[in-house]
């Protein structure tokens, strides 16, 4: 039995008091504990942003790389350590702007990686510019006359890419979020969890209150079948008075690692190198 305290980090937390990121941190810890994983079995990869600092605030293996590049770094780290639980994390700018291309292509590969996107609909660390999910008309540092680019629905894109697990969480609902994260980690294949995460400093529109008035728990709707792609697409686009949280789309698809490793294989990083001799390879050119 792993205790939650096993995950405690001594690193000084740099988030603003009241930030939604704290909810994500708590939910993630709870999910890892419920999965009975030890800190050393977990490898987190993150980008740059307020959200991307999260691995420092739990005790896990961590590659805190570049802004927007968590996906490829996570893929490389996973291929070297496919027996480990790999979780990537970052903000909405990190994931959908700078990292937009990697996000799309990670879904094509379907490695067994969970991606937590702390979606505060704003750039936090750089002090309040528009992100790809910022609502139309929003005033930000770079959109002083209101944002004119329509917000992306990452969930709809994920369904369009046939991502094998697509969910939305809310940082203000610890229990549900922790369940969603747990399910995402357990799911074999690429899992996206887009998390509504209030930024109390820079996003004065999408507040806790704003989200609370809108979110509902889709997982409680027994009639909803997350395997139906068309329905999932419609559900993914639902955004207004009602915003669904929970598992929007989920299905089984071949996992990237399975095209390479056999079930009994150790992680590559723990296998002996055993390279062929150069002469052996050269002799083929006689």
């Amino acid at each position, binding site marked *: 039995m792993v205790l939650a305290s096993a995950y405690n980090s001594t*690193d000084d937390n*740099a988030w603003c008091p009241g930030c939604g990121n704290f909810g994500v941190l708590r939910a993630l810890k709870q999910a890892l504990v419920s999965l009975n994983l*030890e*800190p*050393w*079995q977990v*490898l987190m*990869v993150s980008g*740059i942003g307020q959200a991307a*600092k999260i*691995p*420092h605030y739990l*005790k*896990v*293996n*961590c*590659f*805190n*790389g*570049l802004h927007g*590049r968590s*996906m*490829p*770094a*996570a*893929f*490389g*780290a*996973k*291929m*070297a*350590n496919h*027996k*480990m639980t790999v979780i990537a994390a970052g903000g909405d700018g990190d994931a959908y702007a700078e990292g937009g*291309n*990697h996000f*799309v*292509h990670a879904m094509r*590969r379907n490695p067994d990686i969970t991606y937590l996107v702390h979606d505060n609909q704003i750039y936090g660390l750089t002090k309040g510019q528009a992100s790809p999910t910022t609502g139309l008309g929003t005033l930000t540092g770079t959109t002083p006359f209101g944002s004119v680019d329509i917000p992306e629905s990452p969930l709809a894109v994920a369904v369009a890419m046939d991502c094998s697990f697509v969910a939305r969480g809310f940082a203000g609902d610890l229990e549900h979020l922790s369940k969603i994260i747990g399910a995402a980690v357990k799911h074999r294949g690429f899992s996206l969890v887009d998390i509504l995460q209030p930024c109390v400093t820079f996003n004065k529109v999408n507040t806790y209150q704003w989200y609370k008035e809108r979110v509902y728990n889709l997982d409680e709707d027994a009639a909803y079948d997350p395997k139906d792609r068309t329905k999932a697409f419609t559900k993914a686009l639902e955004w207004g008075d009602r915003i669904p949280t929970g598992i929007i789309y989920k299905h089984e698809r071949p996992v990237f690692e399975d095209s*390479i490793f056999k079930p009994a294989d150790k*992680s*590559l*990083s*723990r*296998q002996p*190198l*055993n*390279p*062929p*001799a*150069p*002469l*052996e*390879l*050269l*002799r*083929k*050119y*006689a």
Partner: protein
Amino acid sequence: MTKDITVGISGAAGMGMQSISFTLAKSFLRAGYNVFVWQDVMSRIRGGNNTSIIRISTSPVNSIKESFDVLVALDLLAIKRNALKVKAGGFLLYDGEKQRAEEPKAGWISVPFEKLAAEAGGDKIMMNSAATGAVLALLGADVSKECDEVIAELFSKKGEAAVTANLRALKAGIAAVTPGISGRFMLAPTLKTNSKNKVLVNGSEALGLGAVSAGLKFYAGYPMSPATSIMEYVAAKSREFGIVMEQAEDEIAAINMAVGAGYGGVRAMTCTSGGGFALMTEGVSLAGMTETPVVIGISQRPGPATGFPTRTEQGDLNMTLFAGHGDFARVILAPSSAADGPVIMGRAFNLAEKYQIPVFVLSDQYFNDSTFSVDLNKVKTEPVDRGKLLLEFSGNYNYKRYDLSDGRVSARLIPGAKDQVVYADSDEHTEEGHITESAEIRLKMLDKRAGKLAELAKVMEQPAYYGSEKPEIVLVSWGSSLGAVTEAVDMLNVSGKSAGALHFTDIWPLPEMKPGFKISSGLKYIGVENNYSGQFADIFEKHTGIKFSKRVLRYDGHPLTAEYIIRGLEG
């Protein structure tokens, strides 16, 4: 008797020039000759005009000649663009029945390739075997047994009938050259035993197999000429040797995947060309900051931007040296010939892991796409040394990735070790790998990372010296130009000018120099490079304080040749 012959095979992309040159090269190699092949190609899939240039010699060759003893022109454009490159006394082979546009000149020999192919019972593409035969006839050397074998191997997967028909076309091609001309060049004989332990391998293959034999376990890349063939080599071998190879969505993904895999604990590489590398520079800086070993192959081609995509240049050295923001240590190696593949790649991975830095292997189109004769007895190798790599660490969550207590290189624990976690961080960080705001730690960490360079300078290898013991002029060169430069030195020494070549494969950091020749007063240094400004010359001058009296530079997309260098020295 000729000791050194150059044959050009020219035609439109898709006509199969490379299969002719391959057959010829392999046949002569097996017969005991040294061969070298370069591909002079346009950026086209079909059409245009490409030329395979094969040099066959009784002594070792690693460079091309600018003119041809024999040119096989497979279409009209090939004649137009290359006829003037045929030496006086040389021959131009063409299919006069098909290519009637011009009045034949002296030395033009019409061989009805297509008709011979048809008669041999094959389709048009067999004209390549007929052309091969015609060349064989001109060169006189008895390599027909070897050639038969090569053709048999080449076409065996297409079935017995294809083999027989091609052999028939080959013989027809030989027979088609009239006796008086046949054997005109009469290549000096060699011993077939010379071919023992010799192989024909191109630069890309040499780098690919070098990496695989160094224990490469992860490769990510995005196609870009002339680096794509390294990726395709690794892809082909990935199953056999348990390598994860993935085509990335772009070069940024490729380098970040490789760095992620390097952090993850395996030997990782990515290769690209200048334009793709430009996109990787932030990732290079990431490797520098996180102290993650990674090997980056840059196969240069002429820039800027898309540039001259299928041509050659050594123009990305400056960019490689200064790629990425901030100061950190890096190593740049540049192979001189395919024989260097294993040792260069072995050293690249060892240096990357021992010093926990990015290591660059800088080649170019001329290197990657050229086929070299490699003597297996002379191939150097490098045993694997993974440096301070740990799979376990005793204690309870007490490991520090950037421990400052043991010099500039900290022990590198691989994630997944029981009761330990490994933090790598792209921000300035503490010994534990957490983000820091401390100026004091910043200073220590920067000194740690950048200070590795001084340690590296002690282990870098001396340049090779070739030529006169007491030279009047020393050509200073690097990477793929070795063959051309040493040939120029030979020519100079023969012509009575005492010359030598100081040739670098270890480019950065430069080692403390022990020249390898006697320095005399009045000794002149000449920088020789395949780029516009003399990028290595600048580095060399700064490092040694020596000023070049001249720089011989080439930047028209063509490789350096001995002739070009000699002309440059004179001009």
